[in-house]
């Protein structure tokens, strides 16, 4: 029986050791050509939902972290010590997140990565705050984590505000002259549409904003077309987003159409049909979109016999970042590791330089622009200049 939110310990450290040992045997060494001689262990924790609806994503996250650990060990470990990964099921609720974090703390982890659901991640971050154990939150959305203000927690996802920035910047690249921002009335969609509208107004761009929770998208499309908008941004759900772009094209709209990350779904493509072609999307970068992740994807596939998801990529980067912070600190003391996380040197993720602002939000976020080409999402722009 799969129990959603169940907390269970998974002893993966030994497996990681075996795997990394095999990889190490294939690599060179500074001393005598054998495997790197690693003395002692550094244990990193991984927090992920391992049961329930998100178990598959949770396992993806764990696999990404394990791959990072194996590769770190292959390269000589961290501070000359073997990287060991221990996993706790953090589930998706505040209670399970706190339990998972407590479990990892009991294993004396140097730091932890993971966190997929916001409730669980925030609770886990707060639970770790007392010890100051660094927590690189790899998959949960950043907004509430930043609001929580936990000094040892660093979200590696962007905020809603940063998705708004991505949308506005892409409109700039497309030389938008008149923008229509539409949402489906849900709080999340309204928040994003409000942020985008405010920023466009601040730049003096003509913009209209409209909420629609009704089915009459044809009427809405007619209104937008009559307004002479040349850029439409939809922040609502995927399926109505697909129907909206279809209705707009039927109404004769020839301008740009872009949807938010909510529409990063087959439902959008199915509902839009041929009208989806050339539509843009603000979405968080994943391995399928990023050419820079191609080699890594191949390594992941070779190890796990499947394609990696976003959670794996994020956890892989998070564990590497944590290891880099330990290296720079030259120590495993939590305060020293935390101190080094905002100033990682020569460290890049698959999207670019990893830096954190004073509030621990990503200085340079991981939102990219996707575009539908031939019925699939492709990368239009990384929106990064670093």
């Amino acid at each position, binding site marked *: 029986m799969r129990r959603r939110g169940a907390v269970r310990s998974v002893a993966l450290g030994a497996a990681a050791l075996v795997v990394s040992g095999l990889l190490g045997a294939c690599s060179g060494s500074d001393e005598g050509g054998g495997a790197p001689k690693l003395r002692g262990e550094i244990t990193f924790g991984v927090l992920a939902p391992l049961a329930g609806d998100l178990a598959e994503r949770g396992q993806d996250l764990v696999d990404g972290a394990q791959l990072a650990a194996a590769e770190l060990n292959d390269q000589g470990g961290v501070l000359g010590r073997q990287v060991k990964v221990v996993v706790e099921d953090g589930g998706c609720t505040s209670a399970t997140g706190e339990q998972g974090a407590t479990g990892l703390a009991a294993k004396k982890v140097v730091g932890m990565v993971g966190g997929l659901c916001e409730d669980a991640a925030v609770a886990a971050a707060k639970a770790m705050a007392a010890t100051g154990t660094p927590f690189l939150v790899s998959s949960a959305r950043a907004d509430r984590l930043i609001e929580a203000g936990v000094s040892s927690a660093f979200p590696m996802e962007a905020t809603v505000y940063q998705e708004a*920035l991505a949308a506005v910047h892409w409109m700039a690249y497309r030389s938008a*002259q008149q923008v229509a921002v539409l949402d489906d009335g849900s709080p999340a969609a309204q928040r994003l549409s409000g942020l985008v509208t405010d920023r466009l107004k601040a730049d*003096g761009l*003509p913009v209209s904003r409209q909420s629609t929770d009704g089915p009459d998208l044809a009427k809405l499309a007619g209104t937008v077309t009559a307004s002479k908008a040349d850029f439409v941004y939809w922040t609502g759900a995927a399926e109505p987003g697909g129907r909206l772009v279809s209705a707009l094209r039927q109404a004769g709209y020839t301008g740009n159409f872009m949807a938010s990350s909510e529409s990063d779904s087959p439902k959008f493509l199915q509902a839009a049909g041929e009208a989806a072609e050339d539509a843009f999307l603000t979405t968080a970068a994943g391995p399928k979109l990023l050419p820079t992740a191609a080699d890594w994807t191949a390594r992941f596939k070779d190890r796990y016999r499947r394609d990696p998801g976003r959670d794996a990529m994020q956890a892989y980067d998070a564990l590497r970042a944590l290891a880099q912070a330990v290296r720079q600190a030259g120590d495993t003391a939590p305060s020293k590791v935390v101190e080094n996380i905002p100033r990682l040197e020569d460290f890049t993720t698959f999207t670019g330089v990893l830096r954190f*602002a*004073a509030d621990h939000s990503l200085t340079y976020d991981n939102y990219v622009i996707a575009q539908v080409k031939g019925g699939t999402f492709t990368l239009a722009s990384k*929106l990064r*200049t670093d």
Partner: protein
Amino acid sequence: MKAKPLVAGAVALAMAAAVQLGGAGAAFAAGPASSPSDNSAHGGGVLDDVHNVPTTAVKGNVTFIDNVRGVSGYSALNFINYKKYGYDFMFANGTGGLAVWSLKNPKHPALVSKITAAELRLPGDTQDRFWEGENMTVDPKRKLVFLTRDPRGFGGTVSTGQSGVYIVDVKNPWKPEVVTFHPIPAGHTATCINDCKYLWSVGPANTGTPGQDPSWKGVPVRVTDIHDIKHPYTFDQAVDLGRHDGVTDYVHSVDVDKNGIAWASGEGGVRGYWTQGRHYDPVLKRKRVATAYDPVPYAGGTVVATNPAGTEFFDFFDHNAYHNTEKVRGFDKGELLYITNENITTCSQAGEFKIASLKGSYDGEGWRSTPENPFRLDLISHWSPWGKEGSATTGSCSAHWFTVNGNIVAQGWYGQGTRFIDVSDPRNPTQVGYFRVPAGEGVTGGSASAVYWHNGLVYVADYNRGVDVLRFDGKLAGKPDDKICWNSCDK
């Protein structure tokens, strides 16, 4: 105007300095609360500073008041008013980093804080040498200072160095804090655009740094969104391309006029852009919305070379410019452009101050100019200190940065010092004051980078001396400006 005899002038200067520095000197001690430079009631004290009295100064119609050193010599200054304190603070950047002075007593700036070059070092840097921060820009509302890092700073080169901007929070001027260093593929100077919601970073001359098109001869304008300084974003698309008869070249300076038009100066001329509002685009031949990242051309171009010797690069190197939005003599309102043509060569042929007319450039002519069919602005006049009263005959003598008050241009000329030029008759610029500091025993020789009118006084950013505080004793021609433009002059 008559130059004061050097000896008498030196004595007078020494005496004046002795008297006036008494005020500044008192600030160094833990004096009473009424001490002119004691800012403890406002949040902090003052730091030790050095005052170099220019007993060798050659001057006319100018009184030396004080000199402050801070952390080094400087390429630029800027000023921010703090309502809560009731006075201004002065910010300077140079090789030594950032220095901050209280202007509670504007005649005697009191050093209150600094960020040294060592504190600005980034991983991989090999020297503690900030470079260079000309045309320093600030956000007076959010209390931010932007230190523009040239790739040649900190031991780097144009092709290996890291360019970008340090964003410094100076809400508490006694405790400036670097919010972030943001890398930008440009970084000789930078200017706030649209009330400092965007930053235009420009230069330097050579490409070779990552992110540059190999066909570019210099770095054009890079636009950075700084609405939110925690998350600065630099656009991949550059602005002001094809500026030198169709070739993309070095933009050296951006100066925003009182109407909000951003004037980009550099190799190939000076071209103005609307960055807000809906305007007719004379290049695209249609009305459209102007933004900082997609500005609408307004007018501009370059003028014919005035150096008879001719130098390939410097002939058309319009270093910085000021668009006078007012009517002057017989010229239309907004017709005149004041330009520094920098040319580092012998003093007799060094770069000059030029005045050009924008007439005939409002229909995109400056954007269609080619080597075969070059467009040039009408040159109204040009001026240099060569042969003028108080001038040197050797050394570095080119025109450099200036500010304008009424019809008096106050300009830095490297070794030629500070020059006050009356442009009431734009066809006949006339020197009405000067201040030059030759090196002497105990006197640091001057190299004036930029001169700033400020609340009745004149502050000189000097590459060698730090900051000289002067008073122009001549008659101010024209209507005094309510607001002096120090690089960005949005309404």
